[in-house]
């Protein structure tokens, strides 16, 4: 009996440790950093190390809180920043639509393939997303350049007389994002489509519905959860994308992730970079909540 009691006592301590250790780690390295970003976003830039004025000072029993709203007002004032926000949103929306248009039929075809083929096809879709992201974006630089493979082939075919300017334009950014994030669209869509009750489609066919009709009225509405999950998985990270616009985009493909990086590393304006991050997070809260909501509902359904 004493052994069990000991085990029970340990269980309490063990449980606390199992919960406590990751909890503390994540509070320290994930939650606390956001509080600091929020704090710095209200600070004033200065030529110092670190390059900003303290927000809280305590001297002579007097706690001074200096909240500088200037960084946020600057974001409103300077056209550069809201152009960047709008540019990011536009690029993210167009790329998400691109992923959806290409990814939906792909996911549909996989879900309807023989079961043995499905795992192979899924592996083929997943493998590239596990290979280096940077390298895959880099691969497109060689393809899209003025003297790149695509232009060479088109010139050789006689389809064009002079090289098309693709690299360093928004078109290249769209191609890059659709290419890099396509697997994140296909996988949740597949997971949704494969669970669909086929008898509904058969019933529709028996009642004389044409396949395009069935698709619009049954398949598409039923896959709403997958469409939303996939779109959010593409949309959210592409808003903050840095590598793709930096390597494939031009001076006019302003994206907020790129601007944040430049403010931070090139201009060394940490407060403005923090304010940019806070506003970006604010913009993403709705899509992130939407994603979590549908994710949670899916899990409940499975349970």
């Amino acid at each position, binding site marked *: 009996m004493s*052994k069990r009691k*000991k*085990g029970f006592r*340990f*269980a309490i301590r063990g*449980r606390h440790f*199992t*919960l406590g250790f990751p*909890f503390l*780690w*994540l509070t320290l*390295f*994930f939650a606390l950093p956001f509080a*600091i*970003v929020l704090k*710095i976003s209200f600070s004033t830039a200065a030529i110092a190390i670190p390059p900003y004025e303290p927000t809280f000072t305590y001297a002579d029993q007097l706690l001074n809180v200096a909240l500088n709203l200037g960084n946020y007002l600057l974001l409103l004032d300077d056209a550069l920043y809201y152009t960047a926000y709008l540019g990011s949103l536009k690029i993210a929306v167009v790329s998400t639509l691109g992923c959806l248009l*290409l990814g939906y*039929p*792909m996911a*549909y*075809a996989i879900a309807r393939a023989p079961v043995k083929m499905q*795992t192979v*096809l899924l592996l083929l*879709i*997943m*493998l*590239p997303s*596990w*290979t*280096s*992201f*940077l*390298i*895959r974006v*880099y*691969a497109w*630089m*060689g*393809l899209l350049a003025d003297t*790149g493979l695509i232009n*060479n082939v088109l010139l050789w075919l006689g389809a064009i007389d002079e090289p098309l300017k693709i690299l360093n334009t928004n078109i290249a950014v769209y191609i890059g994002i659709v*290419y890099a994030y*396509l*697997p994140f669209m*296909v996988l949740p869509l597949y997971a949704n489509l494969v669970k669909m009750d086929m008898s509904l489609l058969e019933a529709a066919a028996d009642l004389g519905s044409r396949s395009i009709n069935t698709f619009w009225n049954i398949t598409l509405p039923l896959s709403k959860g997958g469409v939303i999950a996939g779109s959010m998985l593409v949309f959210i*990270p592409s808003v*903050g994308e*840095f*590598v793709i616009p*930096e*390597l494939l985009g031009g001076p006019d493909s302003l994206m907020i992730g790129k601007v*944040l990086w430049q403010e*931070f590393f090139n201009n060394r304006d*940490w407060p403005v*970079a*923090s304010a940019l*991050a806070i506003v970006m997070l604010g913009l993403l809260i709705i899509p*992130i909540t939407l*994603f*979590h909501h549908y994710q949670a509902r899916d899990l409940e359904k499975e349970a």
Partner: protein
Amino acid sequence: MKKLSFSTVMLWLGLIFLYAPMFILIFYSFNASKLVTVWGGFSAKWYVELFKDQQILDAVWTSLEIAFLSASMAVVLGTMAAFVMTRFRRSWAKLSLSNMITAPLVMPEVITGLSLLLLFVHMADLIGWPAERGRLTIWLAHSTFCAAYVAVVVSSRLRELDMSIEEAAMDLGATPLKTFFLITVPMIAPALTAGWLLSFSLSLDDLVIASFASGPGATTLPMVVFSSVRLGVSPKINALATLIILAVSLIAFLSWYFARRAEKRAKAAME
């Protein structure tokens, strides 16, 4: 023959779109010409050049070391979190832990990177640690975001696990710790391996978070690749990219294989 449907055609086009750039890159890495876009015959000379570049070799070593340590820490953290998420009663601590662990999955990397850097700067200010940003700070950053992926992989395995074996072990007097290591760990081992390999390749690949979390003390491979790629396409980088693609594909394939074996085993156990 079956008529090709629209969706099947799109599937094949999509797969070509996914794979063609990588195959073309691999092909051009064997180009003898100095100009990346002009074919000058078959040659492996850029691979030879690559292995003479000390900066790249150093970065490879740094990256491997960080990836190994981060993946190991991520498995510990992620498994504990997965255990809490699947086996613990509902409480505010459980709820906030599961929210915090999944958040890095969707957070834009620039925000995660920036916030971690600001944390390290603050800590250095307040308690004098970390004195210098480098391997240690990248390790902390990578362990945190990789733990999210491990938690997802492991918790889906734990959810499907038959709990009666663990309960039987406890009834026979095994302590929870003993039960965990002798019963649970062997049953979820493939998921742990898959999570470790996934974390390893994620850490090896990360540019944005590593750039923020690193100081002059440590340069990882993606950072070296990025700074040279910014200047344009070069045959040496094509050779390096080919090696990276092959290595990471191998890791990815292994991690997929372990995850699948786990699934098969679980299915066989249920039947």
